[in-house]
C-alpha cells in the first residue's frame, strides 16, 4: 500500500530561503538554453507551414528547394517511418505516436493553420528559409471547423477521417468527438427536484497560450552508428527521448537527450514539435547537427494552447445553504487531434464541494485549431470558472454569504470527488478559514475614483498534483560537499528545493550541494516536470537517496572505528558511537581507506502527490467609459503542504495568479472565420505585465501531505485557476452584470453595460 509519514516539524534547511544554485549562471547570461547550442558543422533547419486551417495535401514539390546551393536535405511525412498506432505513457501524459507524428508533420491533411508540411536543412538559417519558400504545396481546401458546436453538428466536415470515437464506451466512426465519458453518483433527478433553487448556465472560453518567452527549439545529430543526440527546450528530457524515438522509428536507447535550461514552459513544453524533424534532417544530411528554432508566430499558431470550449453547469441548493446536486457537461476543443485536458477538468470541477449527487460528462472534440496541450493545472481553470460563476450567482439569489457558503459546503477528508474518489487529508477548509481571517477579506472594498466602479470576487479551485517516476543520485565529495544529479527539468528553482530535502537529512548546508541535471544516459528515468510533481516526487527520491547515503556512511564509520554498524547513530549531520563523534563533512575526507567514494541513488514511482487547493480574493476597478479593468488588490491563499523554499512557493503562487488574471480579463485566441489566429504576436496577444499588476499578496497554509515525510504538496499549478472566476465576479459586482464568457475584456464589459 501507499507509504504515509508522520510529518517532521523541526527543520534546519527546509523552510529556509537559500539562494538558488542556478542564480549566478542565469543572471550573468552564462546559462545555456536550447537556442545557445552550438556544434561543429552545425546547419539549420526550417519548416513549411500550411496557410490553411483544413485542407487535403494534393502534392508537395521540393525540387526547387533541392536545387538551391547550400541545401542538404528536404523532409516530408513520407520520410517518417510508419508510426505504430499505439499510446505511449510519457511522463504523466499519454502520447498517441501515430497522431503526434502527424501533428509534428502532416500526413495527407493539414488540421490547423501553421501545421508543418515539409522541412529543409541548409548551410545557414537564411538559406534554409529561402529553400523552404521554394517548396510548392498544392492543397484542396476544406471547410474550417471552428468550434465545438460546429464540430458536433450533423453536417460537420470530419477532421480525422480514421478516428473512431469512444462515446460512453461505444465505437462511433465519422465523428469529430473523440471521446465522451461520464462520472456519476447519487440520484440527481430527486436531488434537483427537491432543491429550493436550481441554477443552470453555460460558460464559454477561448484557447489560451502559455506565453513562455523562449520559443521551441531543437538541435539533433543522427550519427553514423545510429545514435541520436538531442538538445531541446523541454520540461522532460525523457519525454523527448521516448516521443522522438517512437516517431523516427528507433529504440529509446538510441536517443540521448541533453538537458538545457528552459525559458518557460507552463505545460506547453511537454510535447515535441521539432526534435524528430531535426533528427531526420540530420540523418538525411549525412549526420550533420541540425538546429531549428521557432518564431513567435509559429509558437502561437502551431504549439499547444489550453483548450477553449464551453461548459454547461447546473447546481441545486436548499434554503439551508447546502448544495443538493451538480451536473455538468464539459466540452473542450482538443484542436486538430484528439486529447484535450477534459479528463483533468472532470477530476477538478466539483472537487471544492461536498456533493451528495453528481454527474460529469466530458467531451473531447476536434476543431481546426492547434492541438491543445497542457497549461498549468490543465482543465482546472476552465472548470473552476464554470462552477464558481454559478455558485456566486446562487449566493446572490439566495442571500448567502459567499465565503460562508463555501465553508459550509467545502470538501474535506473523506469527501467524494466528482469522479467518486475519496479525498485523503486536504486543506480546503483551512484555506477558507485563512480567507476569513485575512486582512484583505476584512477590509472594505474602498471607493473607486470618479468614472470607475469597484467589485470583489472570491473563488476556489483544485488540482490533483502528480507523482510518477523520478531518480536522484548523490555523491559525498572529499571536501564535504555533495554532488547531486537528478532528472527533473528545473522550471521553478527545483534544483534547490530538491537539494534542500537531501540536505535536511544529511545535515549539510544546501549551499554545499552542487545539483546538476544530466542527460538521459546519465540518470534514471525521470518524468516530466509537470503536474506539480517535481518538488514532491524528485524531492522524495532525494530524501531516500540521502537516507541511503547515511546508511552507507554508517558502514564506513563502523569500519573506521572498528565497531558494529548497529552501534553507529546519526543525527543532525553527526555520527556517534561509543562516545566518539564525527561530522559528516569531516568524515568525507577520510573515506578512501573504507572503500572509496560514498554514493547513493534512489528512484521512486509515486502515486498521487496530495491535493492542492487555492482560494483567491480579487478587487478590481472598471472604467465605465472604456471597459478597461485594473486589479487593485489581490490575495491568493493556498495549501502548500510544507513550503520547502517559501520564496519559490510564493513565486509560484504569484505567477500562477497573474497568468489566471490574464486569462480572465484579456487573453484569447482571436480566430477569424477561415481559421487564422489574428493576434499571433505579443503585441496583440495581451498578457499582463508587471506594470498591470498589484503585488499579489500570498497566504500559504500548511496542511501536511501524509504521503511525504515533510508534508510537501505540489504548488505550481492550482494558483492559475481561481483568478478566472474571482476576476469575473469582481467585474460583475462592479458593473451589476454577470459574465459567462471569457475573457471579460473591455468590449464585453461595454456590451454588457452600454449595449456596445
Amino acid at each position, binding site marked *: *500500500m*501507499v507509504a504515509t509519514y508522520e510529518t517532521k516539524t523541526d527543520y534546519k534547511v527546509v523552510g529556509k530561503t537559500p539562494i538558488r544554485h542556478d542564480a549566478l549562471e542565469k543572471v550573468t547570461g552564462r546559462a545555456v538554453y536550447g537556442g545557445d547550442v552550438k556544434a561543429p558543422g552545425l546547419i539549420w533547419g526550417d519548416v513549411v507551414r500550411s496557410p490553411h486551417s483544413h485542407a487535403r495535401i494534393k502534392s508537395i514539390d521540393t525540387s526547387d528547394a533541392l536545387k538551391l546551393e547550400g541545401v542538404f536535405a528536404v523532409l516530408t511525412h513520407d520520410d517518417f517511418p510508419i508510426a505504430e498506432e499505439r*499510446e*505511449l*505513457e510519457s*511522463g*504523466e*501524459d*499519454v502520447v498517441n505516436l501515430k497522431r503526434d507524428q502527424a501533428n509534428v508533420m502532416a500526413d495527407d491533411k493539414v488540421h490547423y493553420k501553421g501545421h508543418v508540411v515539409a522541412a529543409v536543412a541548409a548551410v545557414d538559417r537564411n538559406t534554409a528559409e529561402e529553400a523552404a519558400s521554394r517548396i510548392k504545396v498544392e492543397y484542396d481546401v476544406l471547410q474550417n471547423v471552428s468550434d465545438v458546436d460546429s464540430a458536433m453538428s450533423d453536417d460537420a466536415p470530419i477532421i480525422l477521417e480514421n478516428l473512431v470515437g469512444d462515446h*460512453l*464506451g461505444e465505437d462511433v466512426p465519422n465523428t469529430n468527438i473523440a471521446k465522451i*465519458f*461520464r*462520472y*456519476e*453518483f447519487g440520484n440527481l433527478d430527486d436531488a434537483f427536484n427537491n432543491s429550493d433553487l436550481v441554477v443552470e448556465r453555460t460558460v464559454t472560453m477561448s484557447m489560451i497560450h*502559455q506565453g513562455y518567452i523562449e520559443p521551441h527549439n531543437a538541435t539533433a545529430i543522427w550519427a553514423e552508428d545510429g545514435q541520436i543526440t538531442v538538445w531541446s527546450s523541454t520540461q522532460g528530457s525523457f519525454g523527448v527521448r521516448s516521443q522522438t524515438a517512437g516517431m523516427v522509428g528507433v529504440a529509446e536507447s538510441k536517443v540521448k537527450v541533453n538537458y538545457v535550461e528552459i525559458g518557460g514552459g*507552463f*505545460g*506547453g513544453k*511537454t510535447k515535441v514539435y521539432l526534435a524528430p524533424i531535426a533528427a531526420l534532417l540530420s540523418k538525411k544530411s549525412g549526420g550533420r547537427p541540425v538546429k531549428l528554432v521557432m518564431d513567435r508566430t509559429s509558437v502561437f499558431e502551431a504549439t499547444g494552447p489550453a483548450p477553449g470550449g464551453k461548459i454547461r453547469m447546473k447546481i441545486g441548493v436548499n434554503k439551508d445553504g447546502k448544495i443538493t446536486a451538480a451536473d455538468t457537461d464539459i466540452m473542450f476543443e482538443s484542436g486538430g487531434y484528439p486529447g484535450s*485536458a477534459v*479528463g*483533468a477538468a*472532470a*477530476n477538478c470541477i466539483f472537487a471544492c464541494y461536498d456533493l451528495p449527487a453528481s454527474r460529469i460528462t*466530458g467531451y473531447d472534440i476536434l476543431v481546426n485549431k492547434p492541438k491543445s*496541450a*497542457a*497549461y*498549468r*493545472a*490543465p482543465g482546472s481553470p476552465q472548470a473552476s470558472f464554470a462552477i464558481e460563476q454559478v455558485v456566486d450567482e446562487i449566493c446572490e439569489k439566495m442571500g448567502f454569504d459567499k465565503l460562508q457558503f463555501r465553508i459550509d459546503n467545502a470538501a474535506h477528508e473523506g469527501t467524494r470527488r466528482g*469522479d*467518486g*474518489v*475519496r*479525498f*485523503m487529508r486536504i486543506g480546503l477548509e483551512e484555506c477558507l478559514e485563512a480567507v476569513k481571517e485575512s486582512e484583505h477579506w476584512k477590509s472594505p472594498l474602498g471607493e473607486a475614483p470618479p468614472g470607475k466602479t469597484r467589485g470583489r470576487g472570491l473563488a476556489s479551485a483544485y*488540482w*490533483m*498534483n*502528480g*507523482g*510518477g517516476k523520478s531518480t536522484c543520485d548523490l555523491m559525498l565529495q572529499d571536501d564535504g560537499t555533495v554532488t547531486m544529479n537528478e532528472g527533473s527539468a528545473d522550471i521553478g528553482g527545483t534544483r534547490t528545493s530538491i537539494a534542500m530535502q537531501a540536505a535536511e537529512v544529511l545535515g549539510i548546508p544546501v549551499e554545499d550541494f552542487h545539483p546538476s541535471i544530466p542527460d538521459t544516459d546519465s540518470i534514471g528515468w525521470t518524468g*516530466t516536470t*509537470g*503536474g*506539480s*510533481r517535481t518538488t514532491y516526487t524528485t524531492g522524495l527520491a532525494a530524501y531516500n537517496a540521502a537516507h541511503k547515503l547515511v546508511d552507507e556512511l554508517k558502514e564506513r564509520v563502523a569500519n573506521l572505528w572498528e565497531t558494529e554498524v548497529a552501534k553507529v547513530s546519526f543525527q543532525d549531520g553527526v555520527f556517534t558511537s561509543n562516545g566518539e563523534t564525527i561530522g559528516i563533512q569531516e568524515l568525507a575526507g577520510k573515506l578512501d581507506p573504507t572503500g572509496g567514494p560514498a554514493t547513493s541513488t534512489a528512484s521512486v*514511482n*509515486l*502515486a*498521487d502527490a496530495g491535493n492542492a487547493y487555492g482560494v483567491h480574493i480579487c478587487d478590481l476597478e472598471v472604467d465605465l467609459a472604456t471597459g478597461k479593468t485594473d486589479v487593485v488588490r489581490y490575495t491568493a491563499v493556498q495549501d502548500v503542504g510544507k513550503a520547502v523554499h517559501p520564496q519559490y512557493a510564493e513565486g509560484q503562487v504569484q505567477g500562477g495568479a497573474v497568468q489566471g488574471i490574464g486569462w480572465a480579463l484579456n487573453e484569447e485566441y482571436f480566430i477569424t472565420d477561415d481559421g487564422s489566429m489574428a493576434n499571433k504576436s505579443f503585441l496583440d496577444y495581451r498578457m499582463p505585465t508587471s506594470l498591470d499588476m498589484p503585488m499579489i499578496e500570498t497566504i500559504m497554509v500548511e496542511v501536511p501531505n501524509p*504521503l511525504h515525510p515533510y508534508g510537501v504538496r505540489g504548488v505550481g*499549478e492550482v494558483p492559475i485557476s481561481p483568478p478566472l472566476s474571482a476576476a469575473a465576479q469582481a467585474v460583475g459586482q462592479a458593473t451589476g452584470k454577470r459574465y459567462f464568457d471569457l475573457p471579460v475584456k473591455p468590449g464585453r464589459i461595454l456590451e454588457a453595460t452600454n449595449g456596445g
Partner: protein
Amino acid sequence: MAHVFLPYVLRKYAGGVETVDMPADTLGELIEKLEDNYPGMKRHLIVDDALKPGLAAIVGHTATRRGLLQKLTPDVEVHFIKAISGG
C-alpha cells in the same frame, strides 16, 4: 472484498448499479472476476495484459503504480478514472 466503484460505461454490464463488491487479492484478479461476472467489462480496462493507457486505477485514495499486480486489502475502494496529465 473490494468495493468497486464502476465507471459509468461499465454499469450497463452490471445492471446499472454504481458499485459492486468482489473478493480479490490483486487488481488483475479483480478485473478477471468482474469479467467473469459481468462479461464485456474487461475490454474497457485492459489492453495487452496491462491497464489501458490513459486509465488510472485508484486503490483506496491513490492511483496505483503497480498496475494489475496491485494488492487489494479487505474492504478497499477501487475506482477506474481517466489518468491525469499536468502542466
